[in-house]
């Protein structure tokens, strides 16, 4: 399933719903569904807010597919990107009381595989993988 989503916060709910529909059919349990839903939400928030910056002329590409017990979600924005290799560790004592910066950390905590890469000419792609147990 593939969709081009608007750069609005409504797309966060929509993407979560689409991913969970597929994940439920793939047999994921309640705990995994919560983790998948949150990882998708955080990824789409990043794409809408930090990537496309709510620009109505930019879209968020969303794709979810399952193969056997493997769920793969791809989210890509058209923004200017960021240095994802140099993100502050949100659980380091000096960063603990920051009001933001926990999204990618939670995504990595909840999914089995997470890949980030820069797109040409611009944007960030994140691929999330979860295996049914």
């Amino acid at each position, binding site marked *: 399933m593939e969709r081009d989503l608007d750069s609005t916060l409504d797309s*966060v709910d929509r993407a979560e719903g689409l991913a969970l529909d597929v994940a439920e059919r793939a047999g994921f349990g309640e705990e995994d569904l*919560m983790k998948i839903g*949150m990882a998708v939400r955080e990824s789409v928030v990043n794409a809408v*807010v930090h990537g496309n910056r709510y620009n109505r002329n930019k879209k968020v590409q969303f794709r979810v597919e399952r193969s056997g017990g493997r769920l793969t979600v791809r989210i890509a924005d058209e923004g200017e990107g960021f240095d994802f290799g140099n993100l502050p560790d*949100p659980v380091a004592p000096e960063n603990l009381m920051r*009001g933001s910066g*926990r999204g990618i*950390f*939670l995504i990595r905590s909840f999914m089995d595989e997470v890949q980030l890469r820069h797109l040409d000419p611009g944007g960030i792609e994140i691929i999330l993988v979860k295996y049914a147990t």
Partner: protein
Amino acid sequence: MSVNLSTRQEGDVSVVDVEGRITLGEGTSALRDTIRQLVGNGQKKILLNLGDVSYIDSSGIGELVSGFTTVTNSGGQLKLLNLTKRVKDLLQITKLYTVFDVAESEASAIRSFT
């Protein structure tokens, strides 16, 4: 309405009952506005009752942290009450569980304010 916040006064403690979703947008804005308003009104003892919070995201967690900082910087105390498993798990994953003063009973939480 994704979130509903109502404030009641129990002695000198302001108890904020939070119901619904604390997520980026309406949820985080409502929480931020409520805490700032209480601090602006001179309230020093604030208890957030999160027992009916159905969902929280990283922005919501961040708003709890910002609220804690706002209250602390004003010389007050902010405590949390009735964490759901989901909220508690997220606070533990993000290593914030020990940062907040968390209570499971409103009566004991109110008594614990100094």
